[in-house]
C-alpha cells in the first residue's frame, strides 16, 4: 500500500480561534476511512485544506506525495463539499459533462461519464433538470455524482448522507462499499453506525486536535498505540438481550477471562475480557444463555464505534 495522505504539523487559525492544532497523520490507500468528531471539531476545515479550498496557516499536507493544490493532483481527487451548489441556470447534465471535460474527457465521453455517475446515484431521469428543481437530497446526490466522475484515487465525502432518506443513504453506503476497491474514501459523518458499516479506519478529531487514528474493529490491541506489550489483550462482546435481565449479568461475570462488564442500557451490556485467557468466550456465553433460557437479540464481537470513541475519550 502507498501513502495516500500525509499531514505534518497542520494548523489552521481563523483570527484567534484555532480550528486545527498541529495535526499529524498518515493514511495509506485502501479501505474507507471515517473522519469523526463533534461539531466544530475541525472536520470540514481538514477536508477543505485537503481539497485545496483553503490554505493551512502552517504545516504541510501532501496527497499522493504532492503538496495539496499541486497541478499533479488535478483530476485525482474527488470531493463532496459541504453546502456547495451548482449553477441554477444550467442543466445537471450540462454542468457535470463540463466538469468531466475539465478532467480530460472528450465531449461525447463527458456526456457518457456524467450519465454513468448520475445512474450510480439513481438520478439519470433528472439529468436535464436544473438544480433549482431538485430536493435537498437530490442536490446532494448530484454533488456526490460529480465527486465520483473519472477515476479519482481519493474521494472526500463531507456528510454524504446528511438530509437523505434511509433508502438513498443506503444506496450511497452501497456505492462507497462497491467502489472502495478502486477508490480510497474518507467520509465524515455524525452517524457513527453508518461509518462503522462503511469504514475500516477512523480519524477522531476533537477541538481541532487529532485524538486518535485507529482501526474500527472494536478490539483494544489494534487500536491504541498506548497499549504496552504487557497489557492484557482486551477484547469485547456487546450483548443485547430481548429483555432486561440483571441476574444473567452476574452469571456472565463468573465466566473465565472476564475483566469487566459495562451496562450500556437496561437490555444491553459490554463484556471486557482477556482474549489470550479465553479465545472462545463467545461460545461459552452462548452456552450459558441457552442453559439459562435467556433470549438475546444480538451478540457482536467488539464494541461499537461510538463506545470505542467515548471510552477512549474518557481514558
Amino acid at each position: 500500500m502507498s501513502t495516500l495522505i500525509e499531514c505534518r504539523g497542520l494548523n489552521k487559525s481563523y483570527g484567534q480561534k484555532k480550528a486545527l492544532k498541529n495535526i499529524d497523520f498518515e493514511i495509506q490507500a485502501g479501505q474507507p476511512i471515517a473522519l469523526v468528531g463533534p461539531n466544530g471539531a475541525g472536520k470540514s476545515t481538514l477536508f477543505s485544506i485537503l481539497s485545496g479550498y483553503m490554505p493551512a496557516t502552517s504545516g504541510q499536507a501532501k496527497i499522493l506525495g504532492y503538496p495539496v493544490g499541486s497541478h499533479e493532483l488535478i483530476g485525482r481527487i474527488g470531493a463532496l463539499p459541504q453546502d456547495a451548489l451548482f449553477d441554477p441556470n444550467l442543466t445537471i447534465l450540462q454542468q457535470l459533462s463540463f466538469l468531466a471535460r475539465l478532467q480530460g474527457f472528450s465531449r461525447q465521453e463527458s456526456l457518457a461519464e456524467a450519465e454513468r455517475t448520475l445512474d450510480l446515484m439513481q438520478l439519470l431521469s433528472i439529468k436535464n433538470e436544473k438544480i433549482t428543481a431538485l430536493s435537498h437530497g437530490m442536490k446532494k446526490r448530484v454533488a456526490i455524482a460529480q465527486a465520483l466522475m473519472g477515476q479519482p484515487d481519493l474521494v472526500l465525502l463531507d456528510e454524504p448522507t446528511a438530509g437523505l432518506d434511509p433508502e438513498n443513504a443506503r444506496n450511497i453506503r452501497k456505492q462507497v462499499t462497491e467502489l472502495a476497491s478502486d477508490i480510497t474514501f474518507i467520509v465524515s459523518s455524525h452517524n457513527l453506525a453508518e461509518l462503522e458499516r462503511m469504514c475500516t479506519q477512523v480519524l477522531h478529531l476533537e477541538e481541532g486536535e487529532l485524538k486518535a487514528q485507529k482501526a474500527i474493529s472494536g478490539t483494544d490491541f489494534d487500536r491504541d498505540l498506548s497499549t504496552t506489550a504487557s497489557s492484557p489483550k482486551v477484547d469485547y462482546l456487546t450483548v443485547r438481550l430481548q429483555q432486561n435481565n440483571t441476574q444473567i449479568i452476574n452469571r456472565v461475570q463468573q465466566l473465565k477471562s472476564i475483566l469487566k462488564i459495562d451496562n450500556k442500557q437496561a437490555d444491553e451490556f459490554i463484556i471486557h475480557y482477556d482474549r489470550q485467557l479465553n479465545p472462545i468466550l463467545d461460545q461459552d456465553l452462548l452456552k450459558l444463555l441457552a442453559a439459562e433460557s435467556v433470549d438475546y437479540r444480538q451478540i457482536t464481537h467488539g464494541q461499537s464505534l461510538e463506545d470505542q470513541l467515548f471510552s477512549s475519550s474518557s481514558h
Partner: protein
Amino acid sequence: MNTNKLDASRQFGLIASQELAASFASKRGLFVTGIFILIWSFLLFYPIRLSAEAMHNPDIGSLMVSLLSLVGLEPLKNWLLAEFAIYWVVALFLFPTFSLLIAADQMISERNRGGLRFLTLRCSRGQIFFGRFIGHLSIQGILLVITLAITYLLLLINNSENWLPGLQLLPLMFLNIMVSVLPFVALMSLLSILMSSVRMASLMAIVILALGSFIINYLAGYIPFLSLLNTWIPGVQLVHMAQSTPSIALMSLWIPLMQTVGFLLIGYGIFRRQEI
C-alpha cells in the same frame, strides 16, 4: 484516468467558453444583454445614422461641426467616414460602461454558493481566474463585432463608395475599443475577488471611476507625486482617444494595457490564496 488528455490550454478554453455560455444563460446576463441591444439599436439607427447623414449634408454639416467643437470633439469633422466617427465616440465610452455591468459577476455568485469548489479540483486557480477574464472579454468582443458590422452596413447604405476605407478602419477600431475595455473587465475581475456581492462590486467600480481622480487630485495637492496614480484609473485616456483617430489613438493603448496587467496580477495574487 484521463490525465494524459489534460491540457492546460484546453482547460483554459473550456473555462472561458463555459463562462460565455453561463453569462448568456443567466437572467442577469440576458437582462444586461437585452439592455445593451436596446441601447445600441437606438444609437445605431437614430444618433449615429442621423448624425452621419447630417455630416454628409453641407447645409447641416457646418452646424454639426460647431456642435462637435463645443464638446471638444472637433477632430471628428476630419473623419472621412461619418458613421464611424460617431460610432467611435459612442463605443469608446459605452463598451467600458457596459463591461462594468456584465463582467461584475465573474466569481461572486459562484463563490457564495460554493460552486468554485467543483472547479478547483479539476483545474488550477489561474485557469479559473484568467479563463473567466477571457470569457467576459469574449462577450465584449462578440458584441463589439456585431455593432461594428451594423455600423459598416449603415456606411454601405449611406455611402457605398467608401466600402474599402471603411473595411480598412474596422480592425483598427476593434483593436482600440477592445484594448480600452480590457482594464474595465480586469478591474471587475479584481473586484469580483474582493467583494462579497455583485452589487457591491459594481458600486465599488463606480466609486473608483467617478471619485478616484477627484480623491487622487485632492491628495496630490499635499503629496504631488500621488498624481501619478491617475494613470491607474481605467478610462483615463478615453477622452484623448475620442478626440483622435483610431491610428493616433493606438499611441495611448499602453495605459489600458498596463492597467490590465496590474489589476490581473493583483487579482490573481489574492485569488490563489483565497478561501473558497
